[in-house]
């Protein structure tokens, strides 16, 4: 057949190409029009980067799902049940020890799924911990909840006031606050890690098959399949429009033009969605679709791997119970 891109099932995709200026969110300001230029490129770049991120994730998931690891070989139903149980356990835990144990278990599972641990820990661990930490940080202080002070941050003195407000005598990091904050951080990180693991080692379509086996109605499963599939088609509409717009804008009031682009893109998307929906329906009819769904192919899964995963999950849950 001669299509060279087919030879290696890698992430290099012949259909969607990367414009060369991506990665630089704001263009170098030209003389005299710096403010306007930055606005214009910012929102275009953000949209396009966002769209590409979707595609990157999809390709990444496909790649990981193809690797040969314990998680990949386990059946999707078992994976869904185990991971859901673990997420629930993280949600219900009321102490730092069980949460730490669960997170550790996540990392172990990531290794078993042949993921690159460094990038996994970075993306789902550090990033989540950091941003969650930032959000809950004020909650750790005595300003939000009185509690047993661990670290005194500021001492105001017994009768301190700030205008009409009476200040507390000291502002400290409380033990309860710190514990609570850490719990939120660990829960968030564990959940994100588990969900990521689930989707990248399973792939979206296999995941839907697993959900169907667990009782999700066939029509709903088909709905999700179609939605996921056509997100990528609609994304190309956005990419085309935004990229073309950028090439044609020469100056002037970028804000208004940019907003009109957004509206036009949304309208184009809507039209395309409607048109595609009509055609897809006709295509399905043309191939004999009668309203009932008959899924055919199942990726073979290993009972041994599923069993091992289930056992590992039970072990972790048991550990959480013991340590709580």
């Amino acid at each position, binding site marked *: 057949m001669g299509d060279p891109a087919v030879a290696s099932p890698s992430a290099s995709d012949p259909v969607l190409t990367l414009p060369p200026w991506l990665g630089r969110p704001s263009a170098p300001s030209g003389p005299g029009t710096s403010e306007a230029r930055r606005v214009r490129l910012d929102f275009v770049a953000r949209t396009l980067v966002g769209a590409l991120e979707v595609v990157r994730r999809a390709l990444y998931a496909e790649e990981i799902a193809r690797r040969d690891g314990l998680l990949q070989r386990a059946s999707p139903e078992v994976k869904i049940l185990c991971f859901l149980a673990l997420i629930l356990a993280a949600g219900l835990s009321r102490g730092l020890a069980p949460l730490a144990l669960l997170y550790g278990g996540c990392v172990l599972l990531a290794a078993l799924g042949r993921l690159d641990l460094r990038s996994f820990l970075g993306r789902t661990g550090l990033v989540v911990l950091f941003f969650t930490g930032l959000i809950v940080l004020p909650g750790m202080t005595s300003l939000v909840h009185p509690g047993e002070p661990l670290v005194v941050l500021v001492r105001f003195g017994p009768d301190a006031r700030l205008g009409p407000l009476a200040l507390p005598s000291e502002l400290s990091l409380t033990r309860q606050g710190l514990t609570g904050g850490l719990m939120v951080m660990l829960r968030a990180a564990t959940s994100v890690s588990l969900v990521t693991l689930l989707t990248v080692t399973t792939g979206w379509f296999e995941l839907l098959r697993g959900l169907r086996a667990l009782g999700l109605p066939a029509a709903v499963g088909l709905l999700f399949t179609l939605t996921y599939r056509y997100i990528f088609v609609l994304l190309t509409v956005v990419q085309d429009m935004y990229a073309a717009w950028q090439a044609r804008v020469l100056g002037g009031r970028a804000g208004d033009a940019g907003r009109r682009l957004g*509206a036009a893109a949304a309208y184009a998307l809507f039209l395309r969605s*409607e048109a595609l929906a009509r055609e897809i329906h006709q295509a399905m009819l043309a191939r004999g679709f009668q309203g009932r769904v008959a899924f055919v192919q199942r990726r073979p899964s290993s009972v041994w791997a599923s069993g091992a995963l289930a056992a590992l999950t039970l072990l972790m849950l048991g550990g959480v119970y013991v340590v709580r």
Partner: protein
Amino acid sequence: MHIPDGYLSPETCAVLAAGSAPALYVAARRLRQDSDGAILARLALASAFGFVVQMLNVPVPDGTSAHAVGAALAAILLGPWGAMLAMTVTLVIQALFFGDGGILALGANIFNMGILAPAVAYVVYQTVAGRSPSRTRLLMAAALAGYLSINAAALATAIELGLQPLLFRAPDGTPLYNPYPLNLAVPAMMFAHLVVAGPVEALVTGLIVGYVHRVQPDLLARPAEGKWAAGAWLPLVVVLGLLIVLTPLGLLAPGTAFGEWAPEELGALVGYVPRGLAALSGWWSGLLPGYAVPILEGVPGGEVLGYLLSALMGVLLAALVWGILRWLLLRPRTRS
């Protein structure tokens, strides 16, 4: 506004998921009536559309860019039920595939952004737009629908988050989930949404609806007859809202209302406590005894807040029961 996991207790999420279920069930029934896949294809594309629309960034006047949630847009273009389903599908895909919003928290996110926001948007839009609106009125309706729907979702989110430290604490006082109580969560979230995110949503919704109206007006949801007709809901909502706001006035009245004495009070008034009253009086204390939320006791204004919350809860519970009864009694029995 997607809440990640860890901030809400699983119990809260379960309650909200249960709250979303009836609406989703009704909306999904239309899917089942779809015998040859036409609605299926439309819904799938609508959900994909919802997903991609959330990625469209537009420049905002202050120089940066922003994007919208799109619940109002979905409601105006797809109708309330289609919007609920489409937003729900979008939220599930975002949570599962992009970690945008937690898995357990899906119950809450779906309720806030998938059920509440589209419903509010649709009612506002239909009410303000009226029967055959001028272009200006239409745009105002769309913008207002966007603004109010996003803020309704934000308020719900803030309340859900703010209730966590009230209801879920370890014995030593450690807040187990979101640490910020109502008096911090509500102002913080509402400020951000009333001042920043709300206007953005209004802008994007108005912009897109305006464009569609200029190019293909028949795409927009037609004013509906019957229970969604303009004005039907507005008086009810206004009255209820006023009543809820005024409930704390009860705190001003001294003493106890006639016939509602506690056993001790009765004993002081008439000299003895009836045996039956003494035996049964402590049996049922309810969820919020005295319309006071326990942890708010020492907080200034806590009593008032307790009253407001109790009133709100009461109204919602009554509406829920009424809705269920109505559905049970009025649903079509046979299908021709």
